[in-house]
């Protein structure tokens, strides 16, 4: 495998890891506050549809992004109502949200656009466009010219113009969200309380801080991040919404969250690892060239889940979830 192929694979790794990273951080806020969320998939799907549909309608990707976040937060509010206010089963609520999104997006899309449950293709201002960093275009031209002269020309410049430059704004937002999340969770009072409420809500309540408000705040942040993740799928990674376009990404994000043991920086590593697996699955020839034998695509598809089960089993380090996770908080006890 030559250097350029590697850069291309890493480039698609970044593209494919971005929605996983955003959804993984979304789950991190929710689960750190003690609310399990297996509805990440549904929230992303709803956001993907509404961002695509509204971006098409108004020919503006930013209005689309807002609509996507709004849709995702509506489902978050539902999850919050079920699991915080009515003390219902958080897992069942997550399952319901996934189905609600899977069904409603197609029903509404069919009614709205009559194209078999998809939005029309997005173009121009209705999509997020790649951002070129200063000098990247000139560097690419230089590189291609040198390459035309001498096919063995080698330079590290593709790392800059292909890998670092040329992504949509949401990719950079996702990566910046990692240090931001770390800072918020581990360096602010809000973060301390959020983590405490997921471990020992009684203590937080005794200190006079509202458990309910903190958990709603966490679920709300989760909704925003899932909304961005969904909007990225429909308006940046692809040009429009298609039925079931999340394709299990919400669950891969959930797997990454466990793999990262509910920590933000490790979430970055985990999602990039899983993004890398998706990227090489798209290029079976490259792996064959590298390893000398054929790796089944299905194995690459299943690998994130297998790795997560191994981690969960505690054979490689132990993944311990927040202690109060999944338990509704009852004040009077």
């Amino acid at each position: 495998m030559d250097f350029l192929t590697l850069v291309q694979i890493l480039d698609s790794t970044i593209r494919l890891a971005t929605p996983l990273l955003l959804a993984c951080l979304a789950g991190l806020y929710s689960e750190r506050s003690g609310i399990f969320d297996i509805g990440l998939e549904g929230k992303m799907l709803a956001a993907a549809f509404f961002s695509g549909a509204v971006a098409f309608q108004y020919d503006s990707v930013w209005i689309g992004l807002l609509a996507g976040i709004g849709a995702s937060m509506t489902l978050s509010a539902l999850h919050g109502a079920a699991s915080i206010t009515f003390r219902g089963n958080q897992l069942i609520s997550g399952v319901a949200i996934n189905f609600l999104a899977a069904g409603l997006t197609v029903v509404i899309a069919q009614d709205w656009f009559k194209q078999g449950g998809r939005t029309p293709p997005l173009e121009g201002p209705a999509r997020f466009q790649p951002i070129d960093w200063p000098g990247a275009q000139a560097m690419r031209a230089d590189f291609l010219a040198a390459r035309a002269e001498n096919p063995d020309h080698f330079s590290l410049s593709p790392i800059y113009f292909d890998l670092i430059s040329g992504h949509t704004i949401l990719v950079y937002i996702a990566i910046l969200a990692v240090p931001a999340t770390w800072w918020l969770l581990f360096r602010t009072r809000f973060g301390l309380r959020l983590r405490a409420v997921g471990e020992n809500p009684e203590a937080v309540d005794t200190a006079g801080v509202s458990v309910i408000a903190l958990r709603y705040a966490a679920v709300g942040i989760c909704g925003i991040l899932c909304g961005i993740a969904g909007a990225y799928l429909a308006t940046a990674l692809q040009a429009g919404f298609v039925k079931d376009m999340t394709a299990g990404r919400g669950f891969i994000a959930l797997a990454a969250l466990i793999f990262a043991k509910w920590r933000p920086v490790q979430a970055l590593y985990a999602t990039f690892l899983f993004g890398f697996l998706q990227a090489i699955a798209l290029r079976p020839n490259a792996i064959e060239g590298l390893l000398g034998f054929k790796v089944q695509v299905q194995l690459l598809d299943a690998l994130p889940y297998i790795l997560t089960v191994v981690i969960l089993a505690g054979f490689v380090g132990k993944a311990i979830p927040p202690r109060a996770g999944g338990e509704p908080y009852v004040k009077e006890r």
Partner: protein
Amino acid sequence: MQKMPQWADVFLIPVISLLIATFLSGLVILAIGENPIEAVKIMITGSLASTYGWGYTLYYATNFMFTGLAVSVAFHARLFNIGGEGQAALGGLGVALVCLSFDWPHWTLALPAAIVGGAIFGAAWAAIPAYLQARRGSHIVITTIMFNFIGAALLNYLLVNVMRPQGAMDPASARFPDGASLPTFQDMAGIFGVTMFRGAPVNVTFFIAVLACFLVWLLIWRTRLGYEIRAYGHSETAAVYAGISPFKITMIAMLISGALAGMMAINNVMGEAERLVLNSVEGAGFIGIAVALMGRSHPLGVALAALLFGFLYQGGAELSLWSSIPRELIVVIQALVILFTGALDNMVRMPLEKAFLKFGKGGA
């Protein structure tokens, strides 16, 4: 003190939840500019007005009885088995291997073998998450979700690379031998010289599903093991004091659950498709969750809820044929049922409990 009479708990709450779900679904239909009354008419005509419609309704109900029972048995041990989809898919593999391995002379011989095959493969797929939960404390919901995806990838690999007959294009196994073909209701009616259920896939598996409901009832409420499962589900600490092993109960409950999900395959793989195709389960494993919640984890409730969902499925298919409402509306209804009977149960229960307390006082 009991806040509500038992009939309200087992009957009134599910019915009210169902009414809310129906009402909201009606609003969705209105919102997309269709007539809800007309939609219900199409659904009833399509699924209940002919023996053909009934044949499909009962066929779907058979699937949902198995997956609903699977979720219910795990619920009794307070385990949420969300992996019915994967277990049913693996059950399909077991059934296919049994059917293909031998040129079966008659279905009465093939059926018991296929039941065992499906049950063993389904149980095996539940065994690893169960063991990890019991010994390692890994959350069973997460591991069973992961196993759904791993199972899908495994079947995809096997059907594309291993089980596909030479020269065939679509990823599916070879056809099962004729001796493994289960009699449909149409065949059975034919014995009496009546033409009924023409072309509908409902088959002898329906009776196995009904029998399974009865056996699960017997197991849960009439045996020592069932008592232990329920005791463990109510309170793990109390169960440990009573000498019940959490490891044993977790394993047994999940193995039974997986086996029931796997047995669904005798209906859809052996009874209907007569070969193993990709994604043969088609979401029935997840519908089992809605069915178990709706049926309050009681086999009778599960059977009724399975019938209701069978009706919704067949009705939904007719709806997408005869109106512009897509099939996915059924997924919305399914989501609302799960939401109101499962997650928002307290929203229905709390006001009702208050009403009963007030009413009870007034009467006394």
